[in-house]
C-alpha cells in the first residue's frame, strides 16, 4: 500500500475547539477541560483513501489566534491543506477564521481546506442564525461542516473530505 504524508494545519481563534477536534479524531476522546495550546501540538492520523492509497496526516494544532504573526506563518510553511475552526457559540470566531483564510491565501495561494463550525452540541448557546448559516454555505459550499468535538458529529467526515481534496490536488495538481 502506498502511503503519502501530508502536513495539515489546524487554525482558528482561541478556544474554538481545535485541540478537542484533533483529539476526537485521533484518539476518539473528549475532555471538558480547557488547556490552551501554546505554540504547536503535533498529532498524526491515517486516512484510507482507496484500497492501495493511504494518506498520513501530520496535524499541526496551532495555538489560537485571530491574526498570524511570524511564528505562526512559519508553522504554516509547507502545508498541504488546513482546517479552519470556528465556534458556533461565538460569531466573532467566524470572522476570525475568514481573516485567517485570507491571510493564508495571500501567502500560500489556494490550498485544500475544510471549515468546521464547532460545538454544534451547544444548541442553547448557538449564535449562528439560519441566514448566517446560508451565507456560510454559499461561501464554503461542500467545505463547510457543522461539527461537535464533544459528540464527534461530522468530525471524521470533515477530515476525510480534506484528505480527499489533498489527494486530488496531489494527483492532479492545483486546478
Amino acid at each position, binding site marked *: 500500500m502506498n502511503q503519502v504524508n501530508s502536513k495539515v494545519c489546524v487554525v482558528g481563534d482561541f478556544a474554538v475547539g481545535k485541540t478537542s477536534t484533533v483529539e476526537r479524531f485521533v484518539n476518539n476522546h473528549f475532555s471538558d477541560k480547557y488547556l490552551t495550546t501554546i505554540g504547536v501540538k503535533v498529532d498524526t492520523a491515517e486516512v484510507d483513501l482507496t484500497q492501495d492509497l493511504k494518506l498520513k496526516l501530520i496535524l*499541526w494544532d496551532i495555538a489560537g489566534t485571530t491574526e498570524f504573526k511570524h511564528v505562526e506563518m512559519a508553522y504554516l510553511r509547507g502545508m498541504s491543506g488546513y482546517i479552519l475552526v470556528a465556534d458556533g457559540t461565538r460569531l466573532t470566531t467566524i470572522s476570525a477564521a475568514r481573516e485567517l483564510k485570507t491571510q493564508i491565501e495571500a501567502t500560500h495561494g489556494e490550498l485544500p481546506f475544510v471549515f468546521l463550525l464547532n460545538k454544534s452540541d451547544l444548541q442553547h448557546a448557538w449564535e449562528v442564525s439560519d441566514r448566517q448559516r446560508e451565507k456560510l454555505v454559499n461561501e464554503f459550499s461542500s467545505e463547510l461542516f457543522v461539527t461537535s468535538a464533544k459528540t464527534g458529529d461530522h468530525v471524521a467526515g470533515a477530515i476525510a473530505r480534506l484528505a480527499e481534496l489533498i489527494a486530488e490536488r496531489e494527483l492532479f495538481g492545483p486546478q
Partner: protein
Amino acid sequence: MNDLDELKSLLFGAEKQVLDSIQERVQKPETRVVDVADVLPEAVRMSHRQGKELVRNLRDPVGQCIKESFHAEPQEYADALYPVMGPAIRKSITQTLRAFAQQINQTVEQSVSARGLKWRFEAWRAGVPFGEYVVQKTLLYRIEQAYLISRENGLLIEHVHHDASRIKDSDAVSAMFTAIQDFVKESFSPDRTGRLETADMGDFTLWAVHGPHALLVCVIRGVPPRSVRTDLSAILERIHFRYGESLRVYSGDQASMGGVEDELRDCLELEELQVEEAGQRRPPVALIVLALALAATLAYFAWQRYELAGERARLLDGLNSAPGYFVAGVERDGRRFSVSGLRDPLAPPLSEIALTAGIDPARISADMRPFQSLEEQFRLQRAVESLAVPSTASVTVDGKVLRLSGTATREWLDRARSLTAVAIPDYEFDDSALQLAEIAALHDDVSRLASADFYFVEDARFRESDVQRLTNHAATIRDIADRARRLGLALEIIVTGHTDGLGAQEFNERLAQRRVDAAVQQLLRAGLDPQLIKPSIDVGAAGTAGALPTRRKVDVNLALSGPD
C-alpha cells in the same frame, strides 16, 4: 511598370528574383536570426578549434552574465554549489583539525600519569593508537536515531534507529521538531537566520544538521565528538546530491525517495563502529605478526648481545690468564673485538687465545705494544736464549736447576755462569755434565802423544836423530803441561828406561837408570817441571833370545788425570 523595368525583367528576370529574395532576407531581422542560429553552433565549434580568440572575446561578457545572475538569484547558486562546496570546505577544515588533533595526541602521549599508563596498556591490548583510545575513553556515544526531515513542510522523509530504540510516531516527532525549530528561530533569532543545532536532555543530545532542502536530526546517547557533525554533514550532502530535486519538491510521498534509508543508515553505522572500537576490537592479525616478529628480533638481538658479552668475557679471561699479556681493554664494535695492551713477544699468539675462547681470530684486531714480562718462564726462556748455547752443548731445565751437558769452552761457560747469575739468580747452575772443550782437546793431544820412544846407539848415548826428536817432544810436552796446569789437571810424564836384557841384571838396571837420567836431563833442559816426571826402569826378561836393538830405548808416556 515602365518600359525600362519591363526590359530589366526581360533581361534579368531570374536574377532579379534571386536578388529580391536576398534583399528581403537581409533586411528582415527574423530571417537573419534564423540564419545565424543555423550556423552559430558550428561556427563556435570551429572558432574554438582554431584558437583562443573566441574564449578571449567571450570571457568578459560571460563573466558579466554569471556575475549578474549571481546577484539576481544567489539562493539558486548556493543550492547548486552546496553539494560541491561542503566537501571542499570540510576537507580543508578536516586537515587543519587533524594536525591539531595530532598535536593534542602528542601532548597526551607525552604525559605520564598513572591513568595515562593504564590507558596506554589498555590501548596496546586493544590494538588502538593511544591517542584514539584516549578519545574513545573520554567521548563515548552512540547515535540512536536519525531523522531526515523536509525543511519546507517538516514532513519526515526517512527515519532510522537502532532496534532497541523504537519510538512511537516518528512523523509527529519530525513535525514537532520542525515546529520547535520554527518557534526558536522566530522567537530568539532577530533576523530569523539562527537555527536550532543542538539540544540536550538527560543522557541524550539532539543534533540537527541543516541542508538547503532537508535537515538531519540525530538523537545521540552520550557526548559525541565534534567530528561526528562533520560526518553527519557529509551524509546529508550526499543525500542532497543524490536526491536534490526530489528533496526540494518533497510533499510526503516516500516513494519518491527510494533508497534514502540506506544513505541515512550510515549515520547509525558511523558511530556503531566507534562504540565497538572502544571494547571489542581485537588487535589485527598483521599487528600480532608484527609484534611477534619484533619480539623475535629483539630476542635475537638480546641473545646475540648476551652471546657477544659471553665471548668478550671469555676472551678477556683467556688474555688475563695467558702469560706475557697485559690487557688494557677489550672493545666490542658489532661482532668485532679490538684488544689493546702489552704483549711479550715470547707470549703465545693472540689467535691461539682467541681460538681457545671459541672466537674466530679474524673477528679480532689488536693494538698490542711489546714488553718484557718478568714472569718466570719468560725470564728463563730469555736467559737461556741469551746464553747462545753452542751446538756441541745443551741446556736442560730440571726444576730450579739449569743443567749443562756436552762440551763448551771455558770462556763460554764463564760467561754463561755470570749471565745466569744476573738473569735468573734463583736458578742453580749445574755444569757437572759439561765437558770443557780445552780439556777435551788436551786429552786428545795427550792420547796422541801418549807414548813416544827414543833410541840409543849403545850405552846411554842417544841416536843422533832422536836427540833432536826428544828435544822437540819435550817442547810439546811442556806446552801440554802448561795447558794441563791452567786447566787444573795433573799431568804425569812417565819416563821408562829399557835394555835389551843381554848381560847381567844389575848391569842392565844401572844402564836403564842411566838412559832414564839422560832422557830426564833432556826434558828438564826443555823447562819441564821436575815434579811431573816419574822415572822408572824396565830391564826386560833375562835370557830371552837375541839382543834386540829396539829395546835400547827410553819411552815417554803422558797420563792426564782430572781435578779431584
